[in-house]
């Protein structure tokens, strides 16, 4: 079930996911395009290389669990789940339409592959830690991956949870912070900086790594190290570029991007060239 792909395959998957993001957000004319494009490599590496799961049996108790705690980053999340086989790719066309379970904030009403309902920021890490503790108690080898938002780390509960994971030495836990440096009202350092984030997390008992979050090999190497680390939880600061993969969008730091049809069309053309 853990399908190891080669680098070219993973790169192509990431591009396909980016195409879905463009197609899914385009009809509504605005949405979480930039985050989706930026995080595509994190989702690709986690779901298509690192984590062990079985889409035919989503309740499998020994699965690795991935928690997307920034539950609004759904275009890339749903694209990933569909491509990984959890539901039909055709359903992506219902994204953010009335009645569709593909809501703008992911809800577990979609299925158990949404491991927790996390739209209220700061809560998902605690849930993952609860699962990680239960798995240890039950003797399961499962691992627990949490995709945290950088802005989300301003929530106090994240630090309560991190403190507990650190003191418990939870080595089956791996946080990947999608460090795109943007929150709702703009760049993080203009709102409230997290720095020095590596020092902070290290002092909370985590083994910390900083990687280019758009470099597939670096991400895979970081997961490898996290997996082989004993008695400490892992923290990966994955620096991602908003809009990655579409030259005209790269580095546009908007939490919600206005996304007119002509921009969507040219983004689509550019991504198709990469396949």
């Amino acid at each position, binding site marked *: 079930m853990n399908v190891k792909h080669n680098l070219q395959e993973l790169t192509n998957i990431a591009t396909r996911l980016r195409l879905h993001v463009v197609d899914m957000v385009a009809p509504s004319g605005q949405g979480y395009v930039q985050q989706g494009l930026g995080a595509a490599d994190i989702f690709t590496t986690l779901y298509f290389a690192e984590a062990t799961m079985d889409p035919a049996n989503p309740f499998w*108790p020994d699965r690795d669990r991935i928690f997307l705690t920034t539950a609004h980053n759904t275009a890339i999340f749903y694209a990933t789940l569909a491509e990984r086989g959890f539901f039909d790719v055709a359903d992506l066309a219902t994204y953010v339409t009335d009645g569709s379970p593909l809501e703008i904030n992911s809800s*577990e009403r979609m299925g158990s592959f949404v*491991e*927790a*309902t*996390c*739209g*209220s920021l*700061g*809560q*998902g*890490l*605690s*849930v*993952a*830690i*609860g*699962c*990680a*503790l*239960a*798995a240890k*108690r*039950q003797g399961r080898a499962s691992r627990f991956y949490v995709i945290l938002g950088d802005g989300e780390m301003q929530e*106090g*509960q994240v630090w*309560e*949870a991190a*403190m*507990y994971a650190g003191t418990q030495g939870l080595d089956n836990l791996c946080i990947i912070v999608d460090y795109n440096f943007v929150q709702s009202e703009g760049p993080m350092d203009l709102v409230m900086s997290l720095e020095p984030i590596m020092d902070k997390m290290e002092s909370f008992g985590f083994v910390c790594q900083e990687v280019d979050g758009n470099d597939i090999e670096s991400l895979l190497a970081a997961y490898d190290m996290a997996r082989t680390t004993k008695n400490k939880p892992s923290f990966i600061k994955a620096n991602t570029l908003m809009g990655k993969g579409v030259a005209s969008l790269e580095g546009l730091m908007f939490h919600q991007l206005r996304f007119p049809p002509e921009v969507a069309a040219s983004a689509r053309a550019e991504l198709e060239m990469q396949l």
Partner: protein
Amino acid sequence: MNETLTQLEAADFINRSFKPLPRAYGEALVSAAKADSRIVALCADLVPPTETDLFRDELPERFHNVGIAEANMIGLAGGMARCGEIPFCHSFCAFITKRVLDQITMQAAYPNLPVKIVGYLPGVATLLGVSHQAIEDVAIMRSVPNVAIFEPSGPEYHATMVKLALDWDGPVYLRMKRPETTPDEFTPQSLEIGKGIIRREGSDVTIISAGLCLAESLTAADNLDNEGIESRVIDMASIKPIDQALILESAARTGAIVTAENHSIIGGLGSAVAEIIVEEGIGLPFKRVGIKDQFCEGGTTSYLMKKFGLDASAIAMAAHQVMEKKG
């Protein structure tokens, strides 16, 4: 329990006596956990005051003192429940409801997980003052879908609370109060989810109560009896789901209702009873005894119950008022 505590040792927030207090809840939780390995206990650093010291000592591998971090505790419990465990979370009522409402809503109630939320220090039952007094917790929790609320009227029902919590296949809020003395011998009636217990029968007025106010209601009923007023007294330990049939039958039988609760008059037991009566189209003399939309203060429980109008004389006065209206 004749032992006297004379060692110089850590005192707990609740037991201010030199006698060990009975811990029927804590004992029942341990025995349930011994029979069912899914049960785990979490506590936000209030271990003896929530009777979880027994669990900590007997089942340490299934016990987590998570520190003074209630939000994280509820999230952890959500995760554990997702992995097949039945977590019982412990703190004071004020902290385990108001402080973590969003966490309860999203990580226990919406997913309808068997997360059991156990609070101590209900209403005015504490010296510790406004910060530690939960006078709106029932109102808040009652409005959260999927959550059941049970409040024992005395220590004789504490062991049953564990059973009710387990019988409800979803999130539960237990509104607990540590006993201050060893209770007299008492054979409790059996408690069921969604059923009130008639503790005293009478045909003039019905007093519907729960928790700390139940004993006051029984005292009020004795005093009313001396004045020729016969009261039915109901222990509504299952606040949600509530015993609609018994409320309507009591309305029809006695034609006057008083509710009495150690909680704000807004949104709690009194409101729940009123909603049922009004929606049935019944008009009758009705009075809520509770904290009258105000904050309280630190003090002994008996002092506060008198000062804020929750004691037997306040309940009896309310009964007189509805009797007058009934004519």
